[in-house]
């Protein structure tokens, strides 16, 4: 390993704050990856409780069923990397003030499930926090077709995107593809923070 590069990256990531909206398949997996990578601070937002059916793709354990996702994920991350500062918000993002918890983060990750909520959230971040990079994902449902996933950049909006995928209302959500997208988002966050890895 390149020790000089590693130390430089570690220092930079330690001073970085990332906000994640939604802690389902995308958000829980992205948060764990970023905690392992050594991000200094994570702002985690979700209003839901862990359900048994979530265990098929979300980073929770049987013992978390019935507990809030924010508390459960905090417990998990503290077991992986207790150095990460965690700010948790057990709340439903409300139209008109969705950007509020994310004002002081360096990068925002959209990890919501419903297409309409995703769109409203992205629009609010782009218009109210115009300098903030936001990473979003669209087209996580199904399995296979990894090669169809692309990064699309539109100014400060970075999309992890498969335009041919079906809506999760008409398809299945499976751990491998959801995890690819979640880690694609986390990987994009590192690239935005650290610059292109040349």
């Amino acid at each position, binding site marked *: 390993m390149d020790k000089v590069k590693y130390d430089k990256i570690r220092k930079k990531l330690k001073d970085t704050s990332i906000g994640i909206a939604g802690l389902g398949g995308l958000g829980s997996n992205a948060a764990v990856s970023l905690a392992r990578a050594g991000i200094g601070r994570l702002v985690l937002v979700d209003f839901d409780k862990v359900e048994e059916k979530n265990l098929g793709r979300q980073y929770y354990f049987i013992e978390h069923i019935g507990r809030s996702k924010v508390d459960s994920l905090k417990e998990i991350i503290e077991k992986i990397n207790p150095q990460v500062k965690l700010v948790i918000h057990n709340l439903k993002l409300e139209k008109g003030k969705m950007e509020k918890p994310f004002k002081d983060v360096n990068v925002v990750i959209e990890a919501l*499930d419903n*297409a309409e909520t995703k*769109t409203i959230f992205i629009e609010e971040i*782009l218009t109210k926090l115009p300098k903030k990079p936001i990473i979003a994902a*669209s087209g*996580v*449902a199904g399995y296979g077709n990894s090669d169809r996933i692309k990064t*699309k950049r539109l*100014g400060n909006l970075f999309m992890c995107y498969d335009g041919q995928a079906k809506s999760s209302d008409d398809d299945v*959500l499976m751990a491998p593809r959801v995890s690819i997208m979640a880690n694609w988002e986390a990987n994009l966050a590192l690239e935005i923070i650290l610059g292109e890895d040349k």
Partner: protein
Amino acid sequence: MSIEVNGKKVEWVKNETVEKLLKRMKYTFPLVVVKINDKVVPRKDFSYVKIPDKSTVAVIHMISGG
């Protein structure tokens, strides 16, 4: 007299709104982020914001799942 929509060159239509352009392009997904020359157009403005000539329009579909 043309605009670019998602990388495709299409004819510019005078006084065409975002809503009408989406219809013309047959973008059936109701949920999209639209940018004209890199500026986001809020959805509530789709019915009256007009597409300027020579502009670059990006339309992103959002699909449920997460």
